[in-house]
């Protein structure tokens, strides 16, 4: 089906298709520029933003550095509050656990709150193989599911679709899945939202099993937190009899009080709101209110491998706000699909190659999908130095070296396809540490400068396909300096 990222081409090739799609570029440009300005205003309202960001970074770092302790504490708290905790080392195990839990209820359909973790493990596809239909209920996820599409943004998976495209998808597909869209549906966002409300309501009201992720899990209290806007989260978290939450092990915060940081930084960073419309917090089960059975599936799936990397582990601080996507000039032009992962954009470029390893073509290309402009780091509410990790992962790709995969130490070999680059880098290093050699090269270039074309053949077209080359000067600066001592002898 189309909803898979397996076998994605490398980033530059995938980006090529997006760059040629004027509608997509227009949609992305419009959406990211709208949210950029709003986020800046929402953040500027808090004059302690830098302190909140620093506290968020420290809370997450501290948690990660003592993750074993907090996982055990969380398990105890959730269990004490009436929940059941399961541990899943990888995607297959998590999918198997969830499928068995659903089957044990006797149900063959579930309603889902938008969750990055369940997308990451391909839960919907795995459930379908077991005969269980999973209905996405977030508006953007619904658009993606009805359109048999792939998500392209963390917060707004259908950001690549404009209102007219959404209307067309609703008109043609809603009837296949349940209540059809009204025949006179226009592309007014309020009407589209209303169509989704009507379509999903019957599913919410009859749902017996809900599946969610969580934005935060509080170790000391066992509380889970879901931050949302539409109310589909509240529906899935409170109406079904059974709730299954699949959550990455890095989503823990140690204390209840820690939420005071993230409930201020997350909404402003993601939807640029002072506060998102709905936040649900639940601790195990409550008699007479909400699900009677609660299962928490703690997911590793590459997170401990990421944790083992001293530079790369900071990626696990991510709270999935997507501010880095919205400011990224590469994301804006390449689109989310080019990243070949449910985690697109700058955070995806450092998360996917760590969660999945750098063996595939797409994963080995992701660390290069950045001009290292640093806008992502600047807006990150937990101060993940994304450029630092990108460069670190480039090193892993070209040099190989020690890494951890599925909990085992491995020695990675340098990736293929970098031999010429490696030779050029070595040659340049050789010349640059020998200024005489550098100077000979410069002089040769200057002497032959009239022969230099403004465009290049072969691999040089990567530059000169769109950009002229600079003209080589008559002499390098160092020759002028030596001739004139910087003009001090009067010669110009």
């Amino acid at each position, binding site marked *: 089906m189309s909803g898979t990222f397996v076998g994605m081409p490398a980033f530059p090739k995938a980006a090529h298709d997006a760059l040629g799609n004027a509608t997509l570029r227009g949609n992305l440009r419009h959406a990211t520029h709208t949210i950029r300005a709003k986020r800046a205003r929402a953040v500027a309202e808090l004059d302690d933003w830098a302190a909140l960001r620093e506290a968020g970074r420290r809370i997450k770092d*501290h948690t990660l550095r003592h993750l*074993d302790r907090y996982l055990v504490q969380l398990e105890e708290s959730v269990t004490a509050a009436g929940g059941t905790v399961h541990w899943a080392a990888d995607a297959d195990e998590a999918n198997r656990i969830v499928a068995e839990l659903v089957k044990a209820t006797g149900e063959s359909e579930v309603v889902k709150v938008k969750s990055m973790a369940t997308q990451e493990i391909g839960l919907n596809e795995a459930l379908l193989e077991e005969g269980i239909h999973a209905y996405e*209920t977030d508006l953007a996820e619904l*658009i993606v599911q009805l359109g048999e599409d792939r998500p392209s943004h963390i917060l*707004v998976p259908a950001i690549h679709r404009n209102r007219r495209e959404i209307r067309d998808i609703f008109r043609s597909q809603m009837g296949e899945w349940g209540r059809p869209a009204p025949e006179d549906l226009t592309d007014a966002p309020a009407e589209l939202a209303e169509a989704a409300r009507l379509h999903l309501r019957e599913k919410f*009201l009859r749902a017996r099993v809900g599946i969610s992720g969580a934005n935060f899990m509080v170790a000391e209290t066992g509380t889970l937190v879901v931050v949302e806007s539409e109310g589909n989260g509240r529906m899935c978290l409170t109406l079904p009899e059974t709730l299954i939450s699949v959550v990455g092990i890095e989503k823990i915060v140690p204390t209840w009080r820690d939420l005071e940081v993230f409930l201020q930084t997350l909404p402003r960073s993601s939807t640029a709101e002072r506060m998102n419309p709905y936040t649900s917090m639940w601790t195990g089960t409550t008699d007479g*209110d909400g699900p009677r059975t609660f299962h928490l599936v703690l997911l590793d799936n590459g997170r401990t491998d990421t944790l083992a990397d*001293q530079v790369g582990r900071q990626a696990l601080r991510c709270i999935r706000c997507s501010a880095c996507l919205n400011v990224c000039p590469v994301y804006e032009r390449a689109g989310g699909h080019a990243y070949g992962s449910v985690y697109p954009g700058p955070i995806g470029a450092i998360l996917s190659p760590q969660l999945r390893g750098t063996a595939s073509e797409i994963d080995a290309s992701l660390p290069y999908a950045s001009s290292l402009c640093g806008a992502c780091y600047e807006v990150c509410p937990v101060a993940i130095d994304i450029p630092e990790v990108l460069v670190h992962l480039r090193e892993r790709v070209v040099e190989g070296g020690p890494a951890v995969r599925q909990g085992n130490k491995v020695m990675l070999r340098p990736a293929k396809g970098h031999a010429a680059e490696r030779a050029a880098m070595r040659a340049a290093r050789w010349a640059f540490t020998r200024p005489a050699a550098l100077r000979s090269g410069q002089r040769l270039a200057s002497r032959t400068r009239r022969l230099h074309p403004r465009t290049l053949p072969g691999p040089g077209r990567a530059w000169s396909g769109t950009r002229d080359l600079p003209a080589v000067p008559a002499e390098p600066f160092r020759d002028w300096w030596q001739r004139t001592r910087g003009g001090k002898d009067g010669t110009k």
Partner: protein
Amino acid sequence: MSSRERILGRVRRALADVTPDERPYAEAVPRDYLREHGARTTEQTVELLAGNLADYRAIVHRSDAEELPYLVMRLLNQHGSQEVLVPPGLPPEWMSAADPVRIHDRAVSTAQRLDQVDSVVTGCAVAIAETGTIVLDGSPDQGRRRISLIPDHHICVVRVPDQVVSSVPQALERLDPARPLTWISGPSATSDIELDRVEGVHGPRTLEVVLLS
């Protein structure tokens, strides 16, 4: 080996380079951010709450105890409500002037039944001025989480100034994590179409907040 042991073992091996921090948590993570933003009088804090609620399209009313039953009646009538859900511990006087049929929050009621109810009236646990947020904690005057979710019209009464705090940190101090909590900031909304906010999806599309003094 169980997956639990496998994952915990992986975590411990991954952290081999890390020296455990044995300091109390409060020392390990300093917090230099503010407890609240700006200095305000109680009255100004309530003003800010009203402003921020309205900014996210909640409809804000003010009332005193005497006037409240008539205000609730008027709001329900304006909405054309035939049936209204009431949590078990809602002060009866709030509803004393209301005409619509009162539907009590019973565990056996199906979601489909609640979907036929027009409105719900609840109290709240705390309201946050800086963000325009009301928080429900399932106390008797608020009821089960679903009753403030399924009806399309939610009237929420906030006792001012007692239930109003300035900030998110102050709200968390007042809340009990053992209770199921719902934080509400304006009516249901979405930013999923072109990253632009549209009000009104699955939760109540009309949120009326009465500031009761």
